[in-house]
């Protein structure tokens, strides 16, 4: 009897796990942090609890999406939604060619990424959410001051073609999320709300139309080179752009439906 009970609970747990994995999201608890840019007052930003995909979206998953939403295929997507490099490494509309099915999909525009998440009943994470979830290493919610953590991120910038790697091969962070660093860059919903003009040295707080993020004036941590590069990268993008190193994952404010 006891053993039966145990087995049943075990199976229940197992099915619960597999469902969670199918769904592929984990909760990230509410908290505050000071982003590199955006807080000229250097006041912490509040990030409410949300759910985040464990992995970036893969080629196989994106192919599945395109089959159902053919207006987002390579040949049919409208010019205002994607530039010419959209899915440039795909052989044709429904063939990602030599790329691995478990590698992250890249060369997608912001519009396509946004649509993908909407079709899953999700959305793109905000930049604050992304940065908040990404500041965790394996053990700490905020590992930004750890030397090894920063070196790990920076070392990724020096490795080429990491977009060819499979998802889930970097480390699992505090929240249970993989690949925030070391695989590809990722779109955020408000990637251009903080705008580094091309000239990072002149971005002063007085320039109110742009964002007040000067590399030397307004950043909270001048040694956080890794973060500088992420913000600079986002600053160079437009929503119809797609690049080979840029993928995405989805988030959700509410508990994902099973």
């Amino acid at each position: 009897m006891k053993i039966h009970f145990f087995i049943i609970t075990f199976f229940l747990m197992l099915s619960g796990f597999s469902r969670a994995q199918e769904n592929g999201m984990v909760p990230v608890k509410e908290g505050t942090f000071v982003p590199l840019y955006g807080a000229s007052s250097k006041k912490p930003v509040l990030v409410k609890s949300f759910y985040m995909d464990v992995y970036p979206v893969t080629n196989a998953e994106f192919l599945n999406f395109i089959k159902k939403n053919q207006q987002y295929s390579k040949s049919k997507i409208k010019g205002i939604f994607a530039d010419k490099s959209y899915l440039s490494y795909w052989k044709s509309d429904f063939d990602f060619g030599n790329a691995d099915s478990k590698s992250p999909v890249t060369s997608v525009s912001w519009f396509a990424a946004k649509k993908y998440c909407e079709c899953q009943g999700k959305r793109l994470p905000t930049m604050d959410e992304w940065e908040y979830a990404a500041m965790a290493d394996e053990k700490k919610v905020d590992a930004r001051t750890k030397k090894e953590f920063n070196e790990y991120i920076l070392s990724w910038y020096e490795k080429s073609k990491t977009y060819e790697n499979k998802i889930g091969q970097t480390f699992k962070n505090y929240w249970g999320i993989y690949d925030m660093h070391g695989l590809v860059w990722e779109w955020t919903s408000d990637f251009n709300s903080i705008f580094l003009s091309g000239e990072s040295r002149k971005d002063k707080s007085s320039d109110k139309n742009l964002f007040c993020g000067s590399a030397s004036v307004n950043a909270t941590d001048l040694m956080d080179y890794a973060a500088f590069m992420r913000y600079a990268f986002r600053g160079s993008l437009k929503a119809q752009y797609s690049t080979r190193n840029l993928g995405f994952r989805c988030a959700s404010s509410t508990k994902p439906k099973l």
Partner: protein
Amino acid sequence: MKKNNCILIKLLVYSLFVVLFLGSCKKEESKNYADIMTEGEMEAELTSPPHVPKPVGNRTAVKLKLNMEIKEQEGTMTDGVKYTYWTFGGSVPGSFIRTRVGDEVEFHLKNHPDNKLPHNIDLHAVTGPGGGATSSLVAPGHEKVFSFKVINPGLYVYHCATAPVGMHIANGMYGLILVEPEGGLPPVDKEYYVMQGDFYTQGEYGEKGLQPFDMNKAVKETPDYVVFNGKVGSLTNGGELTAKVGETVRLFVGNGGPNLVSSFHVIGEIFDSVHIEGGSTINKNVQTTLIPAGGAAIVDFKVETPGTFILVDHSIFRAFNKGALGMLKVEGKENKNIYSGTIQEGIYLPEGGTIQKMPGGSTAKTVVPKRTVEEKIKIGKEIFGTTCFACHQSEGQGIPSTFPPLAKSDYLNADSKRAITTILHGLTGEVTVNGKKYNNVMPAQNLSDDEIANVLTYIYNSWGNNKTEITPEMVKALR
């Protein structure tokens, strides 16, 4: 009379004024190059260092189309040391750009799709916000186009100005753009492109493997490498600049920094003229010219004698210990009027002016005591520390591509007689040590037979060498 005088004075003052005014008018470069009209279109020739594009000469101002690609790529800093360089046009420094005043440059900046980062370009030759950086931030897989008119003649630095600016420069994103004056620069026989830069790696100088950028060292301004043209030995071991006796040589010298200023010097040459800081002021007969980080200089000189002339940053430890060393090889006939070479080698005794005798014969023989190997090693170590270590380094590791290693050296272990003669008579020309070629000069050392025996025994019994023992008799036999 008085009135006449007055008129005379007035006339004098007037003519003086006219002379002064005209004189100043002639001197001043008041021409407004912004108003020069361009005629026609041209594709700009881009070259990687140490080469420069053909001189502009007398051509009219044109619309100059320029395509430059940004590539993030792995390269070699020195033997066994890899580094991920970020480059303009695939080289460090980036491609050389050659224009003339009044040209309108249409700049196409392309960021290779495989690159990870956005980049832009700030050209010091541009009059406009950010030197072009504001208009040129470009994401990987994209292209930005902007144009500018070059209105000031001179030699200018360009570099990437994307956050974090220092890191982009430290990884090699800099180069030179030349704006020639009307009519061009005076013709010379050879022109070369040399640019200094400092690099910061997590490992110390020479530590093997792929070395990541070290931001702490960059902030502290303590580089591991200070080099010409992006790596140790880019201008040695086959990369030497060359010229023939009697030719005129022009070097376009830049300094990308990011931190250090350069004391640029060519050992054994005097610069006939230097465009100070790359501008219009010309200084004559200069030994060492200061090149600020983010600055440049044009140096011209005529080579009068054959030989190897060493380019250095005369902040000299950078040259011999961090890599800031290049070579200019000049071939041709010797000119004994200008340089004799060694005429005579003799004995100098500071005791005074009486007739000196060569030591030797029956009178001045000093008896060398018998020494054990341990004693020899002990004495030899001291001699090494005062005589040999500056070039061959404390652990006999040598300096890559400049001074060969003594540690585990196949060249040394193969032939102890050759080792003795090298110390006795010096060695010039190419040698291959542990598979690497070296071409430098080791002078003959003024050491006694006993001292040579001791220092060689020390070297042979250190750092994994074959433990040969050298005796004073062996040295004497070869002297």
